[in-house]
């Protein structure tokens, strides 16, 4: 059973829809502990918002159970990152390491170079940097991006794809054993996303 964690944000339905499109029927949107405990796959559309999504997760008391499933029980986990333009109201330092510490990471802001318009609302291609399970057999590496910030992880070997269009090297996917993060808006990236999801679902069989 695939569980998409619902913590009262908006985009869970489009992620659900995409899984259904590739033929996955054993799938639910849930925030119940018993569903997460029974999950074979966990998907978390990760959102940064003023409305404090992390408060929602804490209120639902889900952080420990997600960590147990992902770190202890090695359930395949896919985090989909959607970013907002914080515009200085909250420093990105505020969020540093306050969330699931599966991987050591920090948040960085995309530099507002003269030739780059922010928020970064674009189709952009990614480059595979290290061996990637998630990005196997994807013919078209264009994905839809919506962000002004990105996260970067300490262990560069965990970074499997990047975008180096800007003066910074921007991390786009991170993979560490059963843990997968994508920076882009995959459920809106059409066929590329469908192959990515299929790869994720094949992790257990690999």
């Amino acid at each position: 059973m695939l569980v998409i964690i619902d913590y009262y944000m908006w985009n869970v339905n489009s992620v659900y829809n995409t899984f259904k499109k590739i033929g996955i029927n054993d799938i639910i949107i849930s925030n119940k502990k018993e569903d997460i405990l029974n999950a074979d796959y966990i998907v978390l559309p990760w959102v940064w918002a003023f409305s404090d999504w992390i408060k929602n997760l804490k209120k639902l008391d889900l952080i420990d159970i997600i960590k147990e499933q992902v770190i202890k029980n090695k359930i395949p986990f896919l985090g989909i990152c959607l970013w907002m333009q914080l515009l200085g109201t909250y420093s990105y330092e505020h969020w540093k390491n306050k969330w699931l510490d599966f991987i050591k990471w920090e948040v960085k802001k995309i530099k507002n170079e003269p030739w780059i318009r922010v928020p970064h609302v674009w189709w952009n291609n990614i480059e595979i940097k290290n061996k990637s399970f998630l990005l196997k057999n994807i013919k078209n590496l264009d994905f839809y991006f919506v962000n002004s910030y990105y996260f970067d992880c300490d262990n560069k070997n965990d970074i499997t794809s990047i975008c180096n269009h800007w003066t910074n090297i921007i991390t786009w996917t991170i993979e560490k054993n059963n843990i997968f993060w994508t920076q882009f808006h995959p459920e809106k990236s059409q066929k590329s996303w469908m192959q990515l999801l299929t790869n994720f679902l094949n992790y257990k069989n690999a």
Partner: protein
Amino acid sequence: MLKVRIIPTMLFNGISLIKTIKFWEHRTLWNPIQIARVYNSRDVDELIFIDITATKNNRSINFDIIKNISKECFMPLSIWWWIHSIEDINNLLKSWADKIVINSEALKNPSFIKESSKIFWSQCIIVSIDVKKINDEYFVFSDNWTINTWKTLIEWALDVEKLWAGEIYLTSIDNDWKMEWFDINIYKILLNKIKIPLIASGWAWKISDFLKLFKETDVSAASAASIFHYTHVTPNNIKELLNENNIPVRLIK
């Protein structure tokens, strides 16, 4: 590499999709859900759905239609309806829309832009600006281009940016009436002043119009309807020409 976007626009009259001959003359097309399915099968970059008579007819949002269209879209979908409250935006996003477009409400109540961006994030909020050239100056029009606000384009666009809009969707009225592409000049002028992405909107009839736009300006995207409804040109045809001229696009082979 960042790719420019070609965005088909679906114009809705409350019952079906329409195509416009002159600005106020409409001909019925097809069911919007079927058209969304076709555009999705053609891997378009994005889709914009506009109910062009909602404000005039005080027609509230039909969330069922939005949901059914969204189910067909595995690319970003923007909705432009008669949006005038936070609750409208909330319900649209819950109906699986990715972005919303506001125009008159933003002009009547500019703080609505910031309020929306604070709650739903800037990238969800597109502010549409309609302009008309009067005596060498571009003025912003509201209420379906019937009222001159006497704000200049630059003045309003800078305000919109300060109020945390994610993108600006800019339409020039003059060229719409003449069914030609819009004045490249206004994009050049505006793009020197703002830092957020700009979507050029117009009624281009020729593929070469798009090439001229992207060669001469730094717009992030171009939106059009008539060229796709009256001719055999597809968004991919346009992108192929752009690609041949070294303009980065997303091409699906």
